[in-house]
Protein backbone atom coordinates (compact mmCIF):
# COMPACT_ATOMS: atom_id res chain seq x y z
CA UNK A 1 0.00 0.00 0.00
CA UNK A 2 1.58 3.33 -1.01
CA UNK A 3 1.82 6.32 1.30
CA UNK A 4 -1.01 8.24 -0.47
CA UNK A 5 -3.43 5.36 0.09
CA UNK A 6 -2.35 5.05 3.72
CA UNK A 7 -2.83 8.79 4.24
CA UNK A 8 -6.29 8.62 2.65
CA UNK A 9 -7.25 5.70 4.89
CA UNK A 10 -6.08 7.63 7.92
CA UNK A 11 -8.07 10.69 6.82
CA UNK A 12 -11.12 8.44 6.54
CA UNK A 13 -10.51 6.98 9.98
CA UNK A 14 -9.97 10.42 11.51
CA UNK A 15 -13.12 11.81 9.87
CA UNK A 16 -15.54 9.08 10.97
CA UNK A 17 -15.69 10.01 14.69
CA UNK A 18 -16.28 13.61 13.71
CA UNK A 19 -19.12 12.68 11.37
CA UNK A 20 -20.71 10.59 14.13
CA UNK A 21 -20.38 13.51 16.53
CA UNK A 22 -22.09 15.79 13.96
CA UNK A 23 -25.04 13.37 13.84
CA UNK A 24 -25.25 13.29 17.61
CA UNK A 25 -24.75 17.02 18.18
CA UNK A 26 -27.31 18.39 15.74
CA UNK A 27 -29.85 15.74 16.72
CA UNK A 28 -29.35 16.61 20.39
CA UNK A 29 -30.01 20.32 19.80
CA UNK A 30 -33.23 19.60 17.90
CA UNK A 31 -34.40 17.12 20.55
CA UNK A 32 -33.69 19.58 23.35
CA UNK A 33 -35.86 22.16 21.57
CA UNK A 34 -38.65 19.59 21.02
CA UNK A 35 -39.00 20.54 17.37
CA UNK A 36 -41.01 18.24 15.07
CA UNK A 37 -37.79 17.60 13.14
CA UNK A 38 -34.87 15.23 13.56
CA UNK A 39 -31.79 16.63 11.72
CA UNK A 40 -29.87 13.57 12.89
CA UNK A 41 -28.45 12.35 9.58
CA UNK A 42 -26.25 15.24 8.43
CA UNK A 43 -23.11 13.25 9.28
CA UNK A 44 -24.48 10.17 7.52
CA UNK A 45 -25.25 12.05 4.28
CA UNK A 46 -21.93 13.91 4.40
CA UNK A 47 -19.92 10.72 4.96
CA UNK A 48 -21.78 8.89 2.19
CA UNK A 49 -20.92 11.58 -0.35
CA UNK A 50 -17.29 11.77 0.77
CA UNK A 51 -16.51 8.15 1.55
CA UNK A 52 -19.24 5.95 0.09
CA UNK A 53 -22.47 4.45 1.36
CA UNK A 54 -20.88 1.70 3.47
CA UNK A 55 -18.98 4.11 5.67
CA UNK A 56 -22.02 6.38 5.64
CA UNK A 57 -24.05 3.49 7.04
CA UNK A 58 -21.36 2.84 9.68
CA UNK A 59 -21.55 6.49 10.74
CA UNK A 60 -25.34 6.33 10.89
CA UNK A 61 -25.50 3.08 12.86
CA UNK A 62 -22.73 3.92 15.33
CA UNK A 63 -24.10 7.44 15.70
CA UNK A 64 -27.55 6.17 16.61
CA UNK A 65 -26.18 3.57 19.02
CA UNK A 66 -24.12 6.20 20.81
CA UNK A 67 -27.08 8.62 20.73
CA UNK A 68 -29.24 5.97 22.40
CA UNK A 69 -26.60 5.66 25.11
CA UNK A 70 -26.12 9.34 25.90
CA UNK A 71 -29.15 11.29 24.66
CA UNK A 72 -32.16 9.45 23.30
CA UNK A 73 -32.50 5.78 24.35
CA UNK A 74 -34.99 5.11 21.55
CA UNK A 75 -32.61 6.06 18.73
CA UNK A 76 -31.30 2.50 18.45
CA UNK A 77 -34.63 1.31 17.03
CA UNK A 78 -34.05 3.39 13.90
CA UNK A 79 -30.58 2.22 12.88
CA UNK A 80 -31.96 0.47 9.80
CA UNK A 81 -33.35 3.80 8.61
CA UNK A 82 -29.80 5.16 8.70
CA UNK A 83 -28.59 2.31 6.51
CA UNK A 84 -31.34 3.06 3.99
CA UNK A 85 -30.50 6.79 4.07
CA UNK A 86 -26.85 5.98 3.38
CA UNK A 87 -27.77 3.64 0.54
CA UNK A 88 -30.14 6.10 -1.12
CA UNK A 89 -27.66 8.98 -0.72
CA UNK A 90 -24.94 6.81 -2.27
CA UNK A 91 -27.09 6.20 -5.34
CA UNK A 92 -27.99 9.90 -5.59
CA UNK A 93 -24.38 11.02 -5.19
CA UNK A 94 -23.22 8.55 -7.84
CA UNK A 95 -25.76 10.06 -10.24
CA UNK A 96 -24.77 13.67 -9.52
CA UNK A 97 -27.91 14.74 -7.64
CA UNK A 98 -25.87 17.09 -5.44
CA UNK A 99 -24.70 19.28 -8.34
CA UNK A 100 -27.49 21.83 -8.03
CA UNK A 101 -29.85 23.13 -5.36
CA UNK A 102 -33.02 22.02 -7.17
CA UNK A 103 -31.86 18.42 -7.63
CA UNK A 104 -30.70 18.37 -3.99
CA UNK A 105 -34.16 19.50 -2.87
CA UNK A 106 -35.86 16.89 -5.07
CA UNK A 107 -33.59 14.19 -3.66
CA UNK A 108 -34.32 15.42 -0.12
CA UNK A 109 -38.06 15.04 -0.72
CA UNK A 110 -37.58 11.53 -2.09
CA UNK A 111 -35.27 10.64 0.78
CA UNK A 112 -37.85 11.90 3.25
CA UNK A 113 -40.59 9.77 1.71
CA UNK A 114 -38.27 6.74 1.77
CA UNK A 115 -37.27 7.39 5.38
CA UNK A 116 -40.93 7.72 6.37
CA UNK A 117 -41.76 4.38 4.70
CA UNK A 118 -38.83 2.61 6.39
CA UNK A 119 -39.42 4.17 9.83
CA UNK A 120 -43.18 3.62 9.87
CA UNK A 121 -43.05 -0.13 10.65
CA UNK A 122 -40.75 0.60 13.61
CA UNK A 123 -43.05 3.34 14.89
CA UNK A 124 -46.07 1.09 14.55
CA UNK A 125 -44.60 -2.18 15.85
CA UNK A 126 -42.44 -0.77 18.64
CA UNK A 127 -44.24 2.43 19.64
CA UNK A 128 -47.77 1.77 18.30
CA UNK A 129 -47.59 5.33 16.93
CA UNK A 130 -46.95 6.91 20.34
CA UNK A 131 -43.39 8.19 20.02
CA UNK A 132 -43.60 10.79 22.78
CA UNK A 133 -42.27 13.62 20.61
CA UNK A 134 -43.67 16.20 18.17
CA UNK A 135 -44.51 13.58 15.54
CA UNK A 136 -46.97 11.95 17.97
CA UNK A 137 -48.97 15.19 17.97
CA UNK A 138 -49.07 15.14 14.18
CA UNK A 139 -50.22 11.53 14.30
CA UNK A 140 -52.93 12.48 16.79
CA UNK A 141 -54.11 15.18 14.41
CA UNK A 142 -54.58 12.68 11.60
CA UNK A 143 -56.34 10.23 13.94
CA UNK A 144 -58.68 13.04 14.96
CA UNK A 145 -59.50 13.66 11.30
CA UNK A 146 -60.75 10.10 11.00
CA UNK A 147 -57.72 8.09 9.86
CA UNK A 148 -56.69 4.76 11.36
CA UNK A 149 -53.56 4.84 13.52
CA UNK A 150 -51.57 2.92 10.91
CA UNK A 151 -52.44 5.43 8.17
CA UNK A 152 -51.91 8.33 10.57
CA UNK A 153 -48.35 7.18 11.29
CA UNK A 154 -47.58 7.09 7.58
CA UNK A 155 -49.20 10.49 7.02
CA UNK A 156 -47.29 11.93 9.99
CA UNK A 157 -44.06 10.60 8.57
CA UNK A 158 -44.82 11.96 5.10
CA UNK A 159 -45.56 15.36 6.69
CA UNK A 160 -42.33 15.65 8.67
CA UNK A 161 -39.65 13.55 6.99
CA UNK A 162 -39.47 15.26 3.55
CA UNK A 163 -39.01 18.70 5.14
CA UNK A 164 -36.49 17.28 7.60
CA UNK A 165 -34.46 15.52 4.89
CA UNK A 166 -34.60 18.50 2.51
CA UNK A 167 -33.13 20.70 5.26
CA UNK A 168 -30.40 18.15 5.93
CA UNK A 169 -29.54 17.68 2.25
CA UNK A 170 -29.38 21.44 1.70
CA UNK A 171 -27.16 21.79 4.79
CA UNK A 172 -24.78 19.17 3.39
CA UNK A 173 -24.90 20.81 -0.06
CA UNK A 174 -23.90 24.22 1.29
CA UNK A 175 -21.31 22.71 3.62
CA UNK A 176 -19.62 20.87 0.75
CA UNK A 177 -19.74 23.97 -1.47
CA UNK A 178 -18.10 26.00 1.31
CA UNK A 179 -15.25 23.61 2.06
CA UNK A 180 -12.00 24.46 0.22
CA UNK A 181 -11.35 22.08 -2.66
CA UNK A 182 -7.85 21.39 -1.32
CA UNK A 183 -9.45 19.82 1.77
CA UNK A 184 -12.10 17.90 -0.15
CA UNK A 185 -9.50 16.41 -2.48
CA UNK A 186 -8.10 14.45 0.48
CA UNK A 187 -11.20 12.23 0.38
CA UNK A 188 -11.17 9.25 -1.97
CA UNK A 189 -14.56 9.54 -3.61
CA UNK A 190 -15.58 9.78 -7.24
CA UNK A 191 -18.83 11.35 -6.00
CA UNK A 192 -17.04 14.63 -5.42
CA UNK A 193 -16.16 14.91 -9.12
CA UNK A 194 -19.57 13.66 -10.22
CA UNK A 195 -21.21 16.42 -8.17
CA UNK A 196 -18.79 19.17 -9.28
CA UNK A 197 -17.47 19.57 -5.76
CA UNK A 198 -13.79 19.32 -6.79
Amino acid at each position, binding site marked *: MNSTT*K*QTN*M*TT*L*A*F*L*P*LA*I*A*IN*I*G*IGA*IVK*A*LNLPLYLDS*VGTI*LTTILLGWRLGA*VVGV*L*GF*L*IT*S*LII*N*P*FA*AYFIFTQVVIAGATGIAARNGWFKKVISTILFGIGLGVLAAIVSAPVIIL*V*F*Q*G*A*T*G*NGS*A*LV*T*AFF*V*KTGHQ*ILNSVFLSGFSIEPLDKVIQCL*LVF*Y*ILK*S*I*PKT*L*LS*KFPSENLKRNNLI
Partner: protein
Amino acid sequence: MKDARQLIIQPYIRILFLISCIAGACLIAEPVFLGGFYVLVILPLFYLNGALRKNMNLLIFGMVPIFLSFVLLYILVSGHSNDAWGFIILKCLRLLVITSSLQFFLSIPKIYLLPTFRAWGLGGQTIITVLGTFTVWEDIQFRAGKIIEARFARGFITERTAWQKAIQLPHILVPLIIGIFRTSVERAESWEQKKILVLVDSLRPAKPKFPVFLNCFLIFASLTWMTLTLIYHFK
Protein backbone atom coordinates in the same frame (compact mmCIF):
# COMPACT_ATOMS: atom_id res chain seq x y z
CA MET B 1 -14.93 5.67 42.40
CA LYS B 2 -17.72 5.61 39.82
CA ASP B 3 -15.79 3.17 37.63
CA ALA B 4 -15.17 0.92 40.62
CA ARG B 5 -18.94 0.37 40.91
CA GLN B 6 -19.35 -0.46 37.28
CA LEU B 7 -20.14 -4.08 36.60
CA ILE B 8 -17.57 -6.21 34.87
CA ILE B 9 -19.66 -8.48 32.69
CA GLN B 10 -18.27 -11.06 30.33
CA PRO B 11 -18.98 -9.82 26.76
CA TYR B 12 -20.92 -12.90 25.65
CA ILE B 13 -23.00 -12.90 28.81
CA ARG B 14 -23.84 -9.28 28.05
CA ILE B 15 -25.15 -10.35 24.62
CA LEU B 16 -27.06 -13.31 26.13
CA PHE B 17 -28.75 -11.01 28.65
CA LEU B 18 -29.78 -8.55 25.92
CA ILE B 19 -31.21 -11.25 23.64
CA SER B 20 -33.12 -12.92 26.47
CA CYS B 21 -34.56 -9.58 27.67
CA ILE B 22 -35.77 -8.62 24.22
CA ALA B 23 -37.12 -12.06 23.32
CA GLY B 24 -38.86 -12.44 26.66
CA ALA B 25 -40.38 -8.98 26.55
CA CYS B 26 -41.72 -9.63 23.04
CA LEU B 27 -43.23 -13.02 23.92
CA ILE B 28 -44.79 -12.27 27.28
CA ALA B 29 -48.07 -10.36 27.51
CA GLU B 30 -48.45 -10.02 31.25
CA PRO B 31 -47.73 -6.55 32.66
CA VAL B 32 -47.10 -8.06 36.11
CA PHE B 33 -44.26 -10.27 34.79
CA LEU B 34 -42.75 -7.44 32.79
CA GLY B 35 -42.98 -5.03 35.71
CA GLY B 36 -41.56 -7.63 38.08
CA PHE B 37 -38.63 -8.35 35.79
CA TYR B 38 -37.90 -4.66 35.47
CA VAL B 39 -38.06 -4.00 39.24
CA LEU B 40 -36.35 -7.19 40.45
CA VAL B 41 -33.65 -7.62 37.80
CA ILE B 42 -33.08 -4.57 35.62
CA LEU B 43 -33.28 -1.83 38.26
CA PRO B 44 -30.84 -3.57 40.66
CA LEU B 45 -28.41 -4.11 37.78
CA PHE B 46 -28.50 -0.42 36.94
CA TYR B 47 -28.01 0.41 40.62
CA LEU B 48 -25.02 -1.90 40.92
CA ASN B 49 -23.62 -0.45 37.70
CA GLY B 50 -23.82 3.08 39.11
CA ALA B 51 -26.15 4.05 36.24
CA LEU B 52 -29.51 4.19 38.01
CA ARG B 53 -29.81 7.88 37.20
CA LYS B 54 -29.48 7.11 33.47
CA ASN B 55 -32.35 4.63 33.67
CA MET B 56 -34.45 7.04 35.71
CA ASN B 57 -33.91 9.62 32.95
CA LEU B 58 -35.25 7.05 30.49
CA LEU B 59 -38.24 6.45 32.75
CA ILE B 60 -39.06 10.11 33.37
CA PHE B 61 -38.05 11.84 30.13
CA GLY B 62 -38.59 8.92 27.77
CA MET B 63 -41.38 6.69 29.00
CA VAL B 64 -43.64 9.32 30.57
CA PRO B 65 -43.99 11.29 27.28
CA ILE B 66 -44.62 8.01 25.46
CA PHE B 67 -47.26 7.03 28.04
CA LEU B 68 -48.92 10.42 27.58
CA SER B 69 -48.79 9.96 23.78
CA PHE B 70 -50.52 6.61 24.20
CA VAL B 71 -53.23 8.21 26.31
CA LEU B 72 -53.64 10.98 23.73
CA LEU B 73 -53.85 8.60 20.76
CA TYR B 74 -55.74 5.64 22.20
CA ILE B 75 -58.01 7.23 24.80
CA LEU B 76 -58.52 10.95 24.20
CA VAL B 77 -58.46 11.10 20.39
CA SER B 78 -59.60 7.58 19.45
CA GLY B 79 -62.20 7.51 22.21
CA HIS B 80 -61.55 3.88 23.11
CA SER B 81 -63.01 2.36 26.26
CA ASN B 82 -61.19 1.64 29.48
CA ASP B 83 -59.81 -1.61 27.93
CA ALA B 84 -57.20 0.58 26.28
CA TRP B 85 -55.49 1.17 29.65
CA GLY B 86 -54.40 -2.46 29.89
CA PHE B 87 -53.05 -2.30 26.35
CA ILE B 88 -51.21 0.96 27.06
CA ILE B 89 -49.61 -0.33 30.28
CA LEU B 90 -48.50 -3.55 28.57
CA LYS B 91 -46.94 -1.69 25.62
CA CYS B 92 -45.20 0.83 27.88
CA LEU B 93 -43.76 -1.87 30.15
CA ARG B 94 -42.61 -3.91 27.16
CA LEU B 95 -40.89 -0.85 25.67
CA LEU B 96 -39.37 -0.01 29.05
CA VAL B 97 -37.89 -3.50 29.51
CA ILE B 98 -36.48 -3.68 25.97
CA THR B 99 -35.05 -0.15 25.99
CA SER B 100 -33.59 -0.57 29.50
CA SER B 101 -31.89 -3.82 28.50
CA LEU B 102 -30.47 -2.12 25.42
CA GLN B 103 -29.28 0.76 27.60
CA PHE B 104 -27.64 -1.72 29.98
CA PHE B 105 -26.03 -3.59 27.09
CA LEU B 106 -24.46 -0.40 25.74
CA SER B 107 -23.27 0.78 29.18
CA ILE B 108 -19.82 -0.76 28.94
CA PRO B 109 -17.30 0.71 31.42
CA LYS B 110 -14.66 2.74 29.56
CA ILE B 111 -11.75 0.66 30.82
CA TYR B 112 -13.41 -2.52 29.48
CA LEU B 113 -14.36 -1.16 26.05
CA LEU B 114 -11.21 -2.52 24.41
CA PRO B 115 -11.42 -6.09 25.81
CA THR B 116 -15.18 -6.17 25.11
CA PHE B 117 -14.80 -5.08 21.49
CA ARG B 118 -11.93 -7.54 21.06
CA ALA B 119 -14.10 -10.35 22.43
CA TRP B 120 -16.82 -9.42 19.93
CA GLY B 121 -14.30 -9.61 17.09
CA LEU B 122 -14.23 -5.90 16.37
CA GLY B 123 -10.93 -4.57 15.05
CA GLY B 124 -8.76 -1.56 15.76
CA GLN B 125 -10.60 0.70 13.30
CA THR B 126 -13.95 0.23 15.06
CA ILE B 127 -12.35 0.83 18.45
CA ILE B 128 -10.68 4.03 17.24
CA THR B 129 -13.94 5.22 15.65
CA VAL B 130 -16.05 4.64 18.77
CA LEU B 131 -13.53 5.94 21.29
CA GLY B 132 -12.67 8.83 18.99
CA THR B 133 -16.32 9.95 18.92
CA PHE B 134 -16.32 10.59 22.66
CA THR B 135 -13.02 12.48 22.59
CA VAL B 136 -13.92 14.71 19.61
CA TRP B 137 -17.30 15.52 21.16
CA GLU B 138 -15.66 17.92 23.60
CA ASP B 139 -13.67 19.49 20.77
CA ILE B 140 -16.87 20.11 18.78
CA GLN B 141 -18.63 21.65 21.80
CA PHE B 142 -15.62 23.92 22.38
CA ARG B 143 -15.52 25.05 18.74
CA ALA B 144 -19.31 25.62 18.61
CA GLY B 145 -19.08 27.68 21.80
CA LYS B 146 -16.30 29.82 20.29
CA ILE B 147 -18.33 30.49 17.14
CA ILE B 148 -21.40 31.47 19.18
CA GLU B 149 -19.27 33.83 21.29
CA ALA B 150 -17.85 35.42 18.15
CA ARG B 151 -21.33 35.95 16.69
CA PHE B 152 -22.55 37.37 20.00
CA ALA B 153 -19.58 39.78 20.08
CA ARG B 154 -20.44 40.96 16.55
CA GLY B 155 -24.07 41.56 17.48
CA PHE B 156 -25.61 38.71 15.48
CA ILE B 157 -27.06 37.23 18.69
CA THR B 158 -29.02 39.62 20.90
CA GLU B 159 -29.96 37.34 23.80
CA ARG B 160 -28.17 34.38 25.32
CA THR B 161 -31.17 32.06 25.21
CA ALA B 162 -31.30 28.47 24.05
CA TRP B 163 -33.60 29.43 21.15
CA GLN B 164 -31.24 32.21 19.99
CA LYS B 165 -28.34 29.76 20.08
CA ALA B 166 -30.36 27.14 18.23
CA ILE B 167 -31.29 29.43 15.32
CA GLN B 168 -27.58 30.10 14.86
CA LEU B 169 -27.22 26.47 13.77
CA PRO B 170 -26.89 27.10 10.01
CA HIS B 171 -24.28 29.82 10.65
CA ILE B 172 -22.35 27.62 13.05
CA LEU B 173 -22.34 24.44 10.98
CA VAL B 174 -20.28 25.64 8.00
CA PRO B 175 -17.27 27.04 9.94
CA LEU B 176 -17.60 24.19 12.45
CA ILE B 177 -17.44 21.48 9.81
CA ILE B 178 -14.64 23.20 7.90
CA GLY B 179 -12.73 23.24 11.19
CA ILE B 180 -13.58 19.56 11.64
CA PHE B 181 -12.23 18.76 8.18
CA ARG B 182 -8.95 20.51 8.91
CA THR B 183 -8.71 18.75 12.28
CA SER B 184 -9.35 15.35 10.74
CA VAL B 185 -6.62 15.89 8.12
CA GLU B 186 -4.12 17.00 10.79
CA ARG B 187 -5.14 14.12 13.05
CA ALA B 188 -4.73 11.68 10.16
CA GLU B 189 -1.16 12.85 9.57
CA SER B 190 -0.41 12.50 13.28
CA TRP B 191 -1.94 9.00 13.42
CA GLU B 192 -0.03 7.96 10.31
CA GLN B 193 3.26 9.01 11.91
CA LYS B 194 2.42 7.22 15.18
CA LYS B 195 1.16 4.12 13.31
CA ILE B 196 -1.90 4.13 15.50
CA LEU B 197 -3.59 1.11 13.94
CA VAL B 198 -0.54 -1.03 14.67
CA LEU B 199 -0.45 0.34 18.22
CA VAL B 200 -4.14 -0.42 18.86
CA ASP B 201 -3.96 -3.91 17.33
CA SER B 202 -0.90 -4.75 19.40
CA LEU B 203 -2.45 -3.53 22.65
CA ARG B 204 -2.98 -6.41 25.02
CA PRO B 205 -5.00 -5.13 27.96
CA ALA B 206 -4.95 -7.20 31.14
CA LYS B 207 -7.74 -9.76 31.24
CA PRO B 208 -10.42 -8.40 33.55
CA LYS B 209 -11.52 -10.50 36.50
CA PHE B 210 -15.21 -11.12 36.02
CA PRO B 211 -17.14 -11.43 39.29
CA VAL B 212 -18.32 -15.02 39.28
CA PHE B 213 -21.50 -14.48 41.29
CA LEU B 214 -22.69 -11.54 39.17
CA ASN B 215 -22.01 -13.20 35.84
CA CYS B 216 -23.58 -16.47 36.98
CA PHE B 217 -26.60 -14.53 38.22
CA LEU B 218 -26.96 -12.91 34.80
CA ILE B 219 -26.81 -16.27 33.04
CA PHE B 220 -29.35 -17.68 35.52
CA ALA B 221 -31.66 -14.65 35.15
CA SER B 222 -31.44 -14.76 31.34
CA LEU B 223 -32.17 -18.48 31.07
CA THR B 224 -34.91 -18.38 33.70
CA TRP B 225 -36.61 -15.46 32.01
CA MET B 226 -36.45 -17.18 28.62
CA THR B 227 -37.79 -20.45 30.06
CA LEU B 228 -40.68 -18.72 31.83
CA THR B 229 -41.63 -16.74 28.75
CA LEU B 230 -41.51 -19.82 26.52
CA ILE B 231 -43.68 -21.76 28.98
CA TYR B 232 -46.09 -18.82 29.14
CA HIS B 233 -46.17 -18.41 25.39
CA PHE B 234 -46.71 -22.06 24.48
CA LYS B 235 -48.95 -23.16 27.37
